[in-house]
């Protein structure tokens, strides 16, 4: 179990910075997801922690010890790769024993540890097989087994589930979570999948363009995004962003219609242009007479409910509803925005203003 502390870490491959000013404290036993789109620097950050890349600047500490110049093998971290990186010429047993043999543990102890981990992951019957003879899901388990057998200070996961099909991914999400609860080990989990980050992490680190956008619990990021990036990354269907003006009295005007009223925030000019963020599931359908009339563009059933695409003047937005009333494209319906739903962002910088 370990704490991992990054202070002012940066990385540059020569074509501009990949990571800038990263400050992050990963607490003991915590499950932290590094989340962002491809190219945001999340994998690089993980590789810096692993020691597979050298930081351009800043300090990386594990349990308080500066590890900038410590070789990966001496950091006592286990990593699960996206490609699994199983040693193709070794059996499952040899794959899982590799790290323990490297440490020159007695054979009996290695056997015990490997068989214990194999039992935990349901790999016992596969121990003598080579990776070639395993399915994708089984390979993923072996990669996990190779990590847990070592009992490392922390686990690093580099998009470990992205090569699995949707069903297996869901199952492994659950199993990794369960393993984390059993082992209580510090885990850093890189993913571009917001569902993985939401469902698995104690805390999410949202990254974009090589910088941390926000750190917090999944619910916190979902409810209180710090900027447009975080707001748009979490949630499916994603948050609606509308061009709006905020009147002095707190009226939010979109396409000439007052969509909602908010307590007027201090420091904003009258009739300021804002970007209005609305979560599709927070919106409600009503009748056109007592709320803002909008036109139904398209209806997508999802099984649990329906995603309704609406046209409000020249702008489009989505609404998620479990309402079962018949809806036809072209029909005019009422849109109601409950208090508390509107999030306001500065259209220039993208930062949240209210």
């Amino acid at each position, binding site marked *: 179990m370990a704490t991992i502390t990054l202070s002012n870490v940066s990385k540059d491959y020569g074509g501009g910075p990949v990571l800038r000013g990263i400050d992050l404290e990963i607490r003991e036993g915590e499950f932290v997801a590094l989340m962002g789109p491809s190219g945001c620097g999340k994998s690089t950050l993980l590789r810096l922690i*692993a*020691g*597979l890349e050298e930081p351009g600047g800043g300090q990386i500490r594990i349990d308080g010890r500066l590890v900038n110049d410590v*070789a*990966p*093998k001496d950091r006592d*971290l*286990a*990593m699960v*790769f*996206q*490609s699994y*990186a*199983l*040693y*193709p*010429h070794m059996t499952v047993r040899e794959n899982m024993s*590799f*790290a323990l043999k*490297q*440490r020159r543990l007695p054979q009996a102890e290695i056997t015990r540890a490997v068989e214990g981990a194999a039992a935990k992951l349901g790999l016992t019957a596969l121990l003598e097989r080579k990776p070639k003879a395993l399915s994708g899901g089984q390979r993923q388990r072996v990669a996990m087994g*190779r990590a847990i057998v*070592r009992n490392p200070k922390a686990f*690093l996961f580099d998009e470990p589930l992205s090569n699995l099909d949707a069903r297996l991914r869901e199952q492994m999400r659950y199993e990794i979570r369960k393993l984390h609860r059993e082992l209580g080990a510090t885990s850093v989990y890189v993913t571009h999948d917001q569902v993985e980050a939401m469902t698995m992490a104690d805390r999410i680190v949202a990254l974009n363009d090589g910088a941390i956008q926000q750190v917090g619990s999944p619910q916190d990021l979902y409810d209180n995004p710090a900027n447009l990036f975080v707001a748009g990354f979490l949630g499916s269907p994603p948050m609606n962003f509308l061009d709006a003006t905020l009147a002095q009295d707190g009226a939010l005007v979109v396409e000439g219609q007052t969509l909602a009223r908010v307590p007027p925030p201090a420091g904003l000019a009258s009739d300021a242009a804002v970007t209005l963020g609305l979560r599709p599931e927070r919106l409600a359908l009503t009748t056109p007479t007592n709320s803002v009339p909008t036109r139904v563009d398209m209806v997508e059933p999802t099984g649990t409910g329906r995603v309704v695409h609406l046209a409000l003047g020249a702008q489009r937005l989505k609404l998620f509803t479990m309402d079962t009333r018949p809806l036809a494209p072209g029909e005019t319906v009422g849109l109601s925005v409950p208090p508390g739903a509107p999030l306001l962002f500065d259209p220039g910088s993208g930062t949240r203003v209210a």
Partner: protein
Amino acid sequence: MSKTFTRALHALALAAFVAFALFPLFWLLKVSLTPDDLMYGEGVRLWPSRVTLDHYGAVLRHTQFPLFFRNSLIVSAATGLFATAAASAAGYAFSRFRFRGKAWVVGVMLISQMFPLVIIVAPIFRLLSPLGLTNSLTGLVVVYTAFNTPFAAFLMQSFFEAIPKDLEEAAMMDGATRFQALRRVILPLTLPGLAATGGFVFTAAWSELLFSLMLNSSAAVSTFPAGLLGFVSKFSVDFGQMMAAGVLALLPVGAFFLLIQRYLVQGLTAGAVKG
């Protein structure tokens, strides 16, 4: 119908090619087995009316061929070993590391492959002579290793590129140094590549004539390609013995390739197909 036809055509084309490629070898064997009195007497025919192993006996007992053979074996094996080792190290570095001057090193190695060897035989002789490396097997090993390493290094580089970086990184996370990762994970996976490269270098050294002829004049350090020329005298050519020696010289290379062919096919196609 048309499918069987194209398949037959395909087989026919292959058979024609194989026959074309192997015919000289067949002729080598045929002449080596033809008794001297039938060599010219029977005209051109595919198989002599009588065969004999006399030429083989003569080559092994009455010529210096066994000595040449031994020299060739020493030179080729040593070259194969050294060049493959150097090429593996270079190929690994090219494939995995970014370092200052890498483009230059690669460029110079490429340029070294562009000269016809004939041009540089004389300078090489001048270089090796004061070092006592002419008329020596060591000299040949040095020259062959130097000239075969660049291509072999590019070959090894492509084999290393076919092995995902993740594997050695996983090994390094698992407590191995880079060198341990190389030895325990990457090297076992490169065996086909090593076999292919080793085979290539061995064969190149085995059949090299120019340097062997120019650098070594003493029979004691002649390799067999140079030695074969000894069967050509001023007034006659002993075709029977020459061909017998040729067949014998084929044996180790043939045996070697038979041994590694499983790896070779795998090796030469590695990286060609993704996955």
